[in-house]
Structure formats: C-alpha cells, structure tokens
C-alpha cells in the first residue's frame, strides 16, 4: 500500500493544536503530556509498528488559544504544510467541531480529542478519549441511587457543552427515582466568583451538591459548602477534583468530597510501587516536562500519548486508514496511568468510546481513597 | 437645503432678545437682559469681564439654556430650536477662544461652515456619489471665493492649527460667512491684533456687511474699534443691561466709565 503523507520508514509526524497561551493556557499541559510520553520512546529508538518498521514520533505543536478558528487554521497548516499523518489531543468541543468537516473531507485522523462530548462533525475520522460526561453523570447517579436514595441534588454546572451534557445525562439517569434535582445553577468561566450561585443552591434546601465546573469554581464550591455551614454530600467532576486544585480551598474543607476518576493517583513524593506510575514519573523526568507531575491535564496528555503509541503499534499499514482502523478497534488496551480495570476498548461502527469506566473516590483530607470497584459502562455509554 | 430665513417684516428688529435670564447652578449670569438689533446694523456689545456677553451669544446659538425670556430672529422665537438648527435659521458666530479644527486645513474648516447647506447625507454619499461630488465642488468654489475675499487664499491648504492667532480668528469669520448668515455674532474677533491690524479688521467688517448683507453683533474690548465701527453700542454689567446708545453717548456715560472704561477714557 502507498504510505500516507506524514509517515516514512523511520518517522511518523503527528500534529497537536492546543491552547498554549491565553486564559486557558492550563490546557497546554495536555500537549506537553503527550510529548512526555513520546520523547522517551524516541530516545529509545521509536515505536515498533505492526508493519514491522520502527519509527520515531515527530510531534508538532501549534497554539490556538482555544479559538476554534485558529484550531482550523492550525490543523490546515499541520496537514498541508507540515504534512502530519494525524492530529491528536485537540482540546475543546467547538474546536473539534470546527475542524470536523475539514478532517472528514481530507481523511485525517483526529485521535483522542480532549473533549467529553463525542458525537461531533467528523464521525468517520475522529475518536475521543476521556469518558463522556454522560458516563460521569451515570456514575454519580449510580452512587446516589445506591447510597442516598432520597437525595435532593443541587447542581452547579459549567454553562458549556460540558455542563449541559452532564445535566441532561444526570436528569435522565435519575428519572423515576427518589433522587431529585432541586436546583441547578450555571457558571461561566468569566464569572469572577460563584458565591451567588452557591447561596442560591444552598437556599434550595438540597443535601447533595454536584459540581461540574472548572477547577477554580470547583475549589470555591468546596470551600463554600463547608464554610457556610451547609455541608452537603459533595460530588465533584474529575476535571476539577485534583488535589492540587482543591488545595487553595483548604484541604480540610475538601474532606469527604467524592469524585470519579479514570487516572491513577500520582503522588511524586510517595510514588508507591505501581509500575505505570513509576514509568510516568521517569518519563516526566526524562522529558523535562514543565507541568507538575500531579497535574491531571498533563497526566491525561500522557495517557493520550500512551494511547497513541498503542494505536501506532497496532497499525498494519503506514496509512491514515490503517491508523483509524487501529484506533477504532482497540481491545482492552492498558495504559500506564489508567486505573486498574479501566482499559481502552472500541469497535468500528459500534463503540466509539475508548474509556467507559470510572471509579469513585472519596477524599480523606490527604488523599483520595477508592470507594468500591470500577463502575463500567462498556458498550452502554448513554448518548446525549 | 436652502437657508430658512423668514422674511424680515418692516421695522421689526432682526434679533430681539427680551428679558432673558440664565442661571448656572447658583450663578445668575444674565438677569432680564434685552437687546434689539436692526437690519444691517453693526451693534457693539461691551461690558466688564463676566458681564454675560458670551453667555448671551451662547443663548442665541442655543449652547446655553434660557431660563426665562424670549429670543426672536425676524420675529420668530428661536430659544427652543435644537442647537444645530440655529445656523440654518441664519445665525453664524465665532468663538471667544476659537472654535476651529486645528487638524483640518483652512479650506476644510470653512467648508464645514457650509455643511448645513450641502447636507452631508450618508446615504447620498453612498449611492449618489456624483451628485454629492458636484455639490462639493460648488461649495468649494464658493468657499475659496470667501477666503480670497478675506485675504486667506494663500493659506487655504494649510492646517489651521499652525496659523497665527489672528489668522485663525479671521478664518473663523470666513467659516461663519460660508454658512450664508443674516446675523453674524463676533466674539472678541480683534483680540491679539496689532493696532494696524485692528484698523484693517474694522474695514474688513464693514466690507463684509456691505458685501454679504449681514447684520453684525460684535463683542469687543478694543474701544477704538468699537467706537469707530459700531452704529450702536449696548453695555452689560453684572448680567444686566447697563446702557445703550450711539458710541459717543456711551463713551461719556458716567456709569459706563465707572464700570467698564476706567479712568483714562
């Protein structure tokens, strides 16, 4: 077969467009995370792919400041000038939508988008990574149905596709049960504080607070819930739940907070003896990455890089089609940073969700402790 | 859009101000002031500093609001006109501290005076460029004529801001004339002129009155000019009418000497 652009006998070019600058530059850690995985592999010689050749991964990163329009120009630049084989880890739902038509027309794989919404404009050529927000909603619902059947839920959600998808999914997951959503308040990333919303939620008489927001508002919510004497059961989305981001709210305030995770906990000072975490820490040191080892976004990036390597390894031909084929047929692929029991599984035409399991954790004031087993929605992720 | 100048009735003053009061917060700048100016006249308006002369001009051109009283132009009350209509009714003025556009050329400044005649309609400019272009040419020609009349043709294309003060004042008069006024209000036009220039200026005003058929109200502190030029002089003091009459009468009026002229004259 004729090899596609971007792949030669010894290299494969991969592009990333992400926000390296601007107000959401935190997401730039994802690109860095991918690099953290690929750099050591290149040093070790490259990836051995299923066609028998070993290739180095050349990563090209472009900055889009999370502006969908710039994502499109970046991707075009990457594809047409740099001739990359595929783009990975594109952050933001609108951004992925903006490039949807282009990648579909051109047949460019858009792998492992960093977006919790998976049904986008380029269905043939894209695949997500992190669990859908519907999965997370289902996990939270399951927790409530199992442990707090009469819960009165107050929901603080980000007023973007993230929060809206989640809200819809949560509502349908708890329909016909004793759990009710008694109040919901949107927040936008431009809100200076969210106390107004929280006061309103508190006044609704809810006993459970579900928070689907960015880290800043998440931390604020956690602090408010305790300081105001409200003390509801707090469930907080994994995008806001990292210990580092809860720290400014006061870790003692965060005690008892429940979250769902798919990544392992990394504690650089106490690495433990998990092989995957150790490798991650070693790679992080080797690649001299800028983000902190505990940065969840960097870890996600690392996991995406890992997934990319898995896809490359199983590519039978040096073509984009083969790449997509490989990405669409992952079979219980294990990644270093995924929690034990969580794997990547996809199937062409049937299953477009790589990760469909989450595990609940509760914060004990110092670390997250697992609650029960991994909850799997393999093959039954609710669509929205 | 022609100048709307109501026909002057016989004997009726061009400008008549009756019992006008103006207040700025606690300060009463004009107290029941009256003034009549007749067709073709050059009426001098003098008075000590802060007597309210400029304020009266501002009332006539609607830049200040009249508390009570009426102002009529050719018998029509104008004290409720919107400010931009004033120039259309035939009143043009100059400003005490210069109201010119320093960044524009002299010609542009003068052409602005004719703005209310040419209209400046945006839609017109967009869809009938030729039409507005022709009008523009016509006005430019007229303005250049006025400039030539006032001896400003050499500086027509110079930025107004770089001209000497007196030239700027003269340009302001040219701008006022470009609006085809019936009534010309000049606020201290001779400030900063040398003696020679003042004489020249007096001649210019007389000439302008003849050539353009305007009635002039002139605020001035330069007694020589006022006495030689004006047909009639009105004196304000502390926001009230103090005296009025022919220049010689006013000059010898003890109240005026006391309040305004001082000892020497």
């Amino acid at each position, binding site marked *: 077969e004729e090899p596609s652009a971007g792949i030669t006998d010894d290299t494969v070019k991969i592009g990333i467009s992400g926000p390296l600058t601007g107000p959401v530059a935190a997401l730039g850690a994802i690109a860095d995370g991918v690099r953290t995985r690929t750099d050591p592999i290149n040093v070790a010689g490259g990836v051995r792919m299923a066609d028998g050749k070993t290739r180095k991964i050349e990563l090209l990163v472009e900055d889009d400041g999370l502006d969908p329009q710039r994502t499109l120009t970046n991707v075009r630049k990457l594809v047409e000038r740099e001739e990359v084989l595929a783009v990975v880890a594109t952050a933001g739902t609108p951004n992925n939508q903006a490039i949807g038509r282009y990648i579909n027309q051109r047949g460019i794989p858009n792998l492992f988008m960093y977006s919790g919404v998976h049904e986008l404009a380029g269905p043939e050529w894209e695949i997500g990574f992190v669990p859908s927000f519907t999965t997370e909603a289902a996990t939270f619902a399951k927790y409530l149905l199992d442990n707090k059947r009469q819960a009165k839920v107050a929901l603080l959600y980000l007023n973007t596709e993230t929060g809206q998808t989640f809200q819809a999914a949560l509502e349908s997951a708890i329909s016909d049960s004793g759990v009710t959503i008694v109040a919901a308040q949107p927040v936008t990333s431009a809100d200076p504080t969210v106390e107004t919303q929280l006061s309103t939620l508190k006044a609704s008489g809810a006993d459970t607070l579900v928070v689907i927001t960015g880290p800043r508002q998440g931390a604020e919510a956690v602090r408010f819930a305790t300081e105001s004497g409200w003390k509801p059961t707090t469930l907080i989305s994994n995008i806001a739940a990292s210990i580092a981001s809860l720290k400014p709210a006061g870790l003692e305030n965060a005690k008892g907070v429940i979250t769902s995770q798919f990544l392992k906990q990394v504690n650089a000072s106490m690495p433990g003896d998990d092989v995957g975490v150790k490798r991650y820490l070693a790679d992080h040191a080797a690649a001299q990455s800028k983000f902190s080892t505990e940065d969840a976004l960097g870890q996600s990036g690392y996991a995406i890089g890992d997934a990319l390597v898995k896809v490359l390894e199983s590519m039978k031909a040096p073509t984009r089609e083969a790449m997509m084929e490989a990405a669409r047929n992952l079979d219980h692929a294990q990644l270093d940073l995924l929690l034990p029991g969580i794997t990547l599984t996809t199937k062409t035409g049937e299953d477009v969700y790589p990760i469909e399991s989450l595990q609940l954790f509760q914060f004990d004031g110092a670390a997250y402790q697992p609650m029960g087993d991994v909850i799997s929605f393999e093959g039954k992720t609710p669509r929205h | 859009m022609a100048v709307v100048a109501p026909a002057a009735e016989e004997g009726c003053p061009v400008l008549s101000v009756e019992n006008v009061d103006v207040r700025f917060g606690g300060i009463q700048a004009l107290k029941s002031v009256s003034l009549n100016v007749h067709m073709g006249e050059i009426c001098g308006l003098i008075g000590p500093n802060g007597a309210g002369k400029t304020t009266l001009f501002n009332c006539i051109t609607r830049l200040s609001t009249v508390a009570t009283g009426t102002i009529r132009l050719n018998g029509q009350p104008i004290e409720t006109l919107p400010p931009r209509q004033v*120039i259309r009714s035939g009143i043009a003025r100059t400003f005490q501290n210069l109201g010119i556009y320093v960044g524009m050329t002299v010609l542009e400044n003068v052409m602005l005076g004719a703005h209310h005649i040419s209209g400046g309609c945006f839609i017109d400019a967009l869809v009938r460029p030729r039409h507005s272009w022709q009008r523009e040419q016509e006005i430019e020609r007229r303005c250049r004529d006025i400039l030539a009349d006032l001896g400003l043709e050499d500086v027509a294309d110079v930025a107004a*801001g770089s001209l000497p003060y007196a030239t700027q004042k003269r340009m302001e008069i040219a701008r006022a004339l470009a609006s085809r006024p019936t009534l010309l209000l000049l606020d201290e036009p001779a400030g900063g002129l040398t003696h020679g220039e003042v004489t020249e200026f007096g001649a210019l005003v007389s000439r302008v009155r003849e050539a353009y058929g305007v009635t002039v109200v002139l605020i001035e502190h330069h007694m020589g000019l006022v006495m030689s030029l004006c047909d009639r002089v009105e004196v304000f003091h502390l926001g009230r009418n103090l005296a009025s009459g022919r220049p010689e009468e006013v000059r010898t009026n003890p109240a005026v000497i006391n309040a305004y002229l001082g000892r020497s004259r």
Partner: protein
Amino acid sequence: MNGTRLFQSAPAALVTAVALCLPFLAPDFMLFEFSIAVCYGIAILGLNLLLGFSGQICLAQGALFGIGAYATAILNVNFGMDPIATLPFAAIITSLIGVLIGLPALRLQGLQLAIVTFGVASAFPQLLLKMDWITGGVTGLATDQPLAPKWFPGSQELWLYGLSLICAAISVFMLRRLLRGDTGRLMRALRDNPLIAESLGVNLTKARLAAFAASSALAGLGGGLFCILNGFISPQSFLPMKSIDILIGGIVGGITSMAGAFIGAVFIVFVPGWTTDINPALGGLIYGLCLIAMMMVARQGIAGLPIGRSLQALGGIFNKKDLSRVPGPLPGQLGGE
C-alpha cells in the same frame, strides 16, 4: 480637492499589490489564513471609520463581527440561502444591531463608551448560548461551503480568497465614498469637537448613528465572510478578546488608514502564531513585547511608519494630501486635556 489619503497612497498600493500577488506565492492553507485576515481587515475598516474618523470607540466590534457571522449561518441553515447571497443581509442586520449598540454613544463618549461596549462584547457569547433555539447554543452552526464554480480555474481556496478580496474591495470603495467630501469632514468635525460641530449644524445624533451603522455593516460583512470561510461557528469564536484583537489590529495598522486596516489584520492573524512558533512556552510573552515594541516604533500605526511615509512621498506625484488627524487625546477624552 484635498483628496484623502486612501486608496491611491503608497501603503495602499503596496497592500493591494501584495494581496494580488499572494495567490502566486502562498500555498493554499496560507491563502486561507490570508482570507481570514481579510475578514478581520473588513471589520477593522469599520472600526477605523468609527474610531479614527468619527471619534467614537466601540469595543463591541468583535460581537458585531459575530452577529454578521451568525446572520450568515442562520440564513443559510434555517432558510437555505446561498451563503454568498447572505452577505448583504449579514451587513444590513448587523448594521441595524450596531445602531442599537450605538445608542448609548449619543450620551456617552470615550472611556465610558468603551467600557459599555466592551460589556456588550463580554455578554455576547453568553447571549448566544442563551438564545440556543436560533444560534444552536454551544454546538454552534455548520454552514454550507460555497464551492468554486466549474469555470473557475483555481483551487477552492483561491476562489474563497478571491471572494474575500472582492468583499474587501467593495468595502474600501464604499468607505471612500463616505470619507471624502462633506460626510468625511463632518465625521472628523464630530471627532475633534462635537460641540462646535453641532453649532455648525451637524446633526450629532444622525451622524453618530450613521457612523455606527456603517461601521457595523462592515463588521457584519467581515463576520459573514468569516463564517463562510470556516464553515462552522460557535460562541467560542466570539469571546470578548476578539473585540480587543480587532482594536489592536486597527491601532497597530494605523487608525486612519485603510491600508493599515489590512496590515493590522494580518498582524493579529499571523503574529500570535509566529510568536508561539519562536518559543511555545514564551509565545504570549513575546507577543506582549511585540505589541509594546510595535507601538513604540510605529506610534501612528504601521501605515504611518516612515517607510510608509517616504513611499508615500514617492507616490505623492499622483496623490495630494493626507487625511488630517490631530495627534493627542483620543476622541472623547480617553486621555489628557
């Protein structure tokens, strides 16, 4: 007639020449980027008209740009209109909304107007989300892409680029008509001293709103084009920073220069990318420095640079006068006395 330094002058000639040569020099994706720059350039033209010539500042230009984009998208998606045919409507609709936004300008000037309009820009993305029944909310809207007709010899990108250039040419042409002669003069009078303008018979209300309308129409046209080029729009593209970017583009290019508008647009489209290319970690830092340095060197915008001026002197054989602009306080006392 004191011709205004507009199209004939040296920077303009240069910009035109470059724009026409580009298809032979730049690869397709670059042409696409330049087309995007042309969209912004049109919006910046509008801002120049408003800020540079009539002295009113509007920081909602990005929102108006967005309104144009959404007008095109909605007309295409909901009413099945051909995207290109929507452009005049985009301009008109935006112009009407622009007049609404301009209403406060009748009482407020300078800093206050800037902040109120910036508020509009900030609220715009949220409004788009709130009105999801028509704007598609967070999911955005995908439009048809006008394909190059069969007879067209070049690529799709070239076709779109040509389309942008035509829109730009029309905008420049219309703006020239507005800026010369009486209307141009009255806007400058308005800018330099509204009080005197009023006493000279200028209808401030009408003039201010007309300036807003014209400026918004240009923003709307640019926005519509933007939508066509991208084929997909979402609120994320019209954050308040977009308005600031457009302002930066306008000022960097030169606020009273038409060529400057396009130079500024190229600046805001390409420079942020270049600076991150120099060093991904320091991209923003370099961009910030770049902005500062740019303004310290080219105080009147790039189009006012000495190079521009000397070229202009060369071109002065064909050309007569500069549009005057008083250096000093921004319209409406944003600064000093």
